[in-house]
C-alpha cells in the first residue's frame, strides 16, 4: 500500500517514456527549449486532430510559420481490407466495400459489383443500370456536401456546414427509404440489386432535389466572392495538371487543375453517354478551384438525376443467372428447387473464371479501381483496391512544403481524403 501522506512524486521529463518523444532531443536535456529565432521548430499535427477528418499525421519542420519540410504518415485506419476479403466469398465482399469511402458507400458497392459482373460476363438489366446511376449521383452530391461543408468549416465558416448538412439529411432520408441504412448501405448485389425501388421513391427524390439548389445558393452566396475565403484558398496548394497526373490524381482534384478527365465521359458505363451533362473544370488547381469544381459537380449530378429518373424502365432488377443471384423468397419457401438454389448460391457463391481484371469507376473522389485475381474458386485470390485519395494524399507533402501551417488544414480539406479509403 502506498503511503497516503507521502508527498506527491515530482515528475521530470526523464520519467516519461522516451518513445513518446517526437524526435526533439532537446526536451531530454532538462527542458531547454531551442531558440525559436534561429533554430527550426518541429511540430506534429495529428493523428487525432479535429481538423484532419480522419487519422493521419503530418510532421513539420518550421521556419517561423513557414513549413520548410514536411512528412506525412498514414495508415492509422488500416483494417486489412485486402487480407480479410481473401477469406470471403465474392458476394460477402460488398459490405466491406461500404467501409472504403464511407461518405459514399453505394458508389463503392456499384464499383465492385461492376468489376465482378465484367468478370462473370453478366449484363445487368436496364432498370438496374439506371437505378445504379441514380443512387451513385445522389451519393456524389452527398459526398461533395460533406467535403465542401467540412472544408469550409476548417477555415472558419460554420454556417455553410449547416446549410449543406440540412440538405444532405434529406437526401440521407431518401437513401434510407431505399436501402434501410444511413451509412453502410450494402444495397447493390453482384448481378443486380438487393430489392426494387419502394413505392413513391422517385417522387420523393424529385421533391428532395428541389431543395438542393437552395442549399447550394446559400453556400455559394456566402463563400464565392467572400474576401476572407478567397484569401485563405486562392493560390493555396496549387498544382499543375502535369504534376497532378504524375502524382496519380483523378476525379475533382485533377479536374480543378483544368483537365477534363472523367471516366463517365471517356469510358461511359450504365448509359452515361446518353445523359446530357458537363464536366466542370477549374483553372488554377488551388483549394478554391477544388471547392468550386465540387459545387459545380453537384449541380451536374442533379441534372443527371433529373434526366435519368424519367427514363428508369420497368422490368427485372436481377440478371437471370441462378449461380449468382438468390432466387425469390416465394420460390425458396414453396419449392424444393428454389431451396436448393438458395443453398447453392449461399454456400458456393459466384465463381468467376480464373483470370485478372482491372475495372474502374468514377467515384466522387476520383477513379476507384478494383484489381481482382480469380483462381476459379468462390473466394477471391487477391483484390487490390486502387483508392483515389491514396494518390492525392501522396502529393500532400509536395503541396504543403513552402506554405504556411494554417494552409495544411485548408489543403487537406480540399483534397477530401477519406481515411477509410486511404488506409483500407
Amino acid at each position, binding site marked *: 500500500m502506498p503511503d497516503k501522506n507521502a508527498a506527491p512524486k515530482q515528475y521530470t521529463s526523464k520519467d516519461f517514456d522516451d518513445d513518446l518523444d517526437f524526435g526533439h532531443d532537446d526536451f531530454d536535456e532538462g527542458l531547454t527549449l531551442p531558440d525559436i529565432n534561429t533554430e527550426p521548430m518541429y511540430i506534429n499535427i495529428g493523428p487525432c486532430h479535429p481538423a484532419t477528418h480522419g487519422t493521419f499525421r503530418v510532421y513539420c519542420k518550421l521556419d517561423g510559420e513557414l513549413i520548410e519540410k514536411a512528412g506525412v504518415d498514414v495508415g492509422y485506419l488500416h483494417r486489412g481490407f485486402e487480407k480479410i476479403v481473401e477469406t470471403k466469398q465474392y458476394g460477402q465482399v460488398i459490405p466491406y466495400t461500404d467501409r472504403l469511402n464511407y461518405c459514399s458507400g453505394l458508389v463503392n458497392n456499384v464499383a465492385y459489383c461492376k468489376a465482378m459482373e465484367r468478370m462473370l460476363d453478366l449484363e445487368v438489366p436496364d432498370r438496374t443500370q439506371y437505378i445504379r446511376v441514380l443512387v451513385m449521383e445522389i451519393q456524389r452530391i452527398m459526398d461533395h456536401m460533406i467535403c465542401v461543408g467540412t472544408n469550409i468549416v476548417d477555415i472558419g465558416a460554420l454556417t455553410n456546414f449547416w446549410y449543406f448538412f440540412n440538405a444532405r439529411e434529406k437526401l440521407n432520408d431518401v437513401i434510407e427509404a431505399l436501402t434501410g441504412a444511413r451509412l453502410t448501405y450494402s444495397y447493390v448485389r453482384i448481378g443486380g440489386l438487393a430489392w426494387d425501388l419502394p413505392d413513391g421513391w422517385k417522387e420523393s427524390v424529385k421533391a428532395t432535389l428541389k431543395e438542393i439548389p437552395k442549399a447550394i445558393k446559400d453556400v455559394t452566396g456566402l463563400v464565392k466572392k467572400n474576401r476572407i475565403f478567397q484569401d485563405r484558398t486562392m493560390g493555396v496548394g496549387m498544382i499543375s495538371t*502535369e504534376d497532378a497526373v504524375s502524382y496519380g490524381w483523378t476525379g475533382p482534384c485533377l479536374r480543378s487543375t483544368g483537365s477534363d478527365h472523367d471516366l463517365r465521359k471517356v469510358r461511359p458505363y450504365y448509359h452515361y453517354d446518353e445523359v446530357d451533362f458537363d464536366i466542370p473544370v477549374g483553372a488554377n488547381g488551388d483549394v478554391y478551384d477544388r471547392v468550386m469544381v465540387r459545387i459545380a459537380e453537384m449541380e451536374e449530378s442533379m441534372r443527371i438525376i433529373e434526366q435519368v429518373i424519367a427514363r428508369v424502365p420497368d422490368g427485372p432488377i436481377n440478371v437471370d443467372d441462378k449461380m449468382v443471384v438468390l432466387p425469390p423468397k416465394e420460390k425458396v419457401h414453396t419449392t424444393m428447387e428454389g431451396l436448393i438454389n438458395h443453398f447453392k448460391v449461399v454456400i458456393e457463391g459466384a465463381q468467376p473464371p480464373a483470370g485478372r481484371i482491372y475495372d474502374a469507376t468514377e467515384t466522387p473522389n476520383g477513379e476507384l479501381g478494383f484489381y481482382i485475381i480469380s483462381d476459379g474458386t468462390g473466394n477471391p485470390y487477391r483484390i487490390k483496391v486502387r483508392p483515389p485519395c491514396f494518390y492525392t494524399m501522396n502529393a500532400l507533402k509536395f503541396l504543403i512544403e513552402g506554405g504556411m501551417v494554417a494552409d495544411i488544414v485548408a489543403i487537406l480539406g480540399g483534397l477530401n481524403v477519406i481515411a477509410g479509403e486511404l488506409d483500407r
Partner: protein
Amino acid sequence: MSDKKRAQKIADAIQSKFGDAVLEIEVAYDEFVAVVDKAIVHDVLADLRWTHHFDLLLDVVGVDCMELEPFRERFEVEYILYAMKSDTRFRVRTPVPETDLDVPTASDLWQSANWGEREAYEMIGINFVGHPCLKRLLTHHEFVGHPLRKDYPVMGGQWCSSTSEMKEELEESQGGAPGGSSAG
C-alpha cells in the same frame, strides 16, 4: 481507333523493341498485359512513359502467386498505366523470384510510384531499388513481415506501440512530374 487497337499497337511495339525479354503478351477482358523480364522492366516502363505517353500510373500491385496456377515465380509486380490523351489502359507485369526480390523503382518516372511501391514493399516484400524512401506506409513501423503474403496468417495481428520519428519522410525530397517543366 478503339482502345483495344491502340493497346494492340503498343503491345506490338514493345514486343518488337524488347524481343525475347517480353515473356508474354496477355489479353484479358479487352486489356493488354505485357509480361516482361525483371531486368528490362524499367526500360519498358520508361519507353511507355516517354514514347507512348502513358502519363498516369494508376496503381502498383504486388501479388503473391504461391497458390496461383500456372505458377511462374513466387511474386509478381504489376503496373497499371493509363494514357490521358489517347484514353488507353495498359498493364506491365513482371515476375519476381523469391530468392531475388529486387525490382528497379519507377518513382523516377511517375511520382505516384512513390507510395504505390511503398505499399507493395510492405504488403508483399518487393524491394524497389533506388526508391527515395522505402519504408512501411500503412502498417506500423515496428510491424514485422509482409501481411499480404499467402503464408502470413489472417489473424496475425502484432503489438506495436512506439511512435515513429519520421525523420526519413521529413528529409525525403519530393518534386513535381519527372521530366516536366516544374520538376524539382
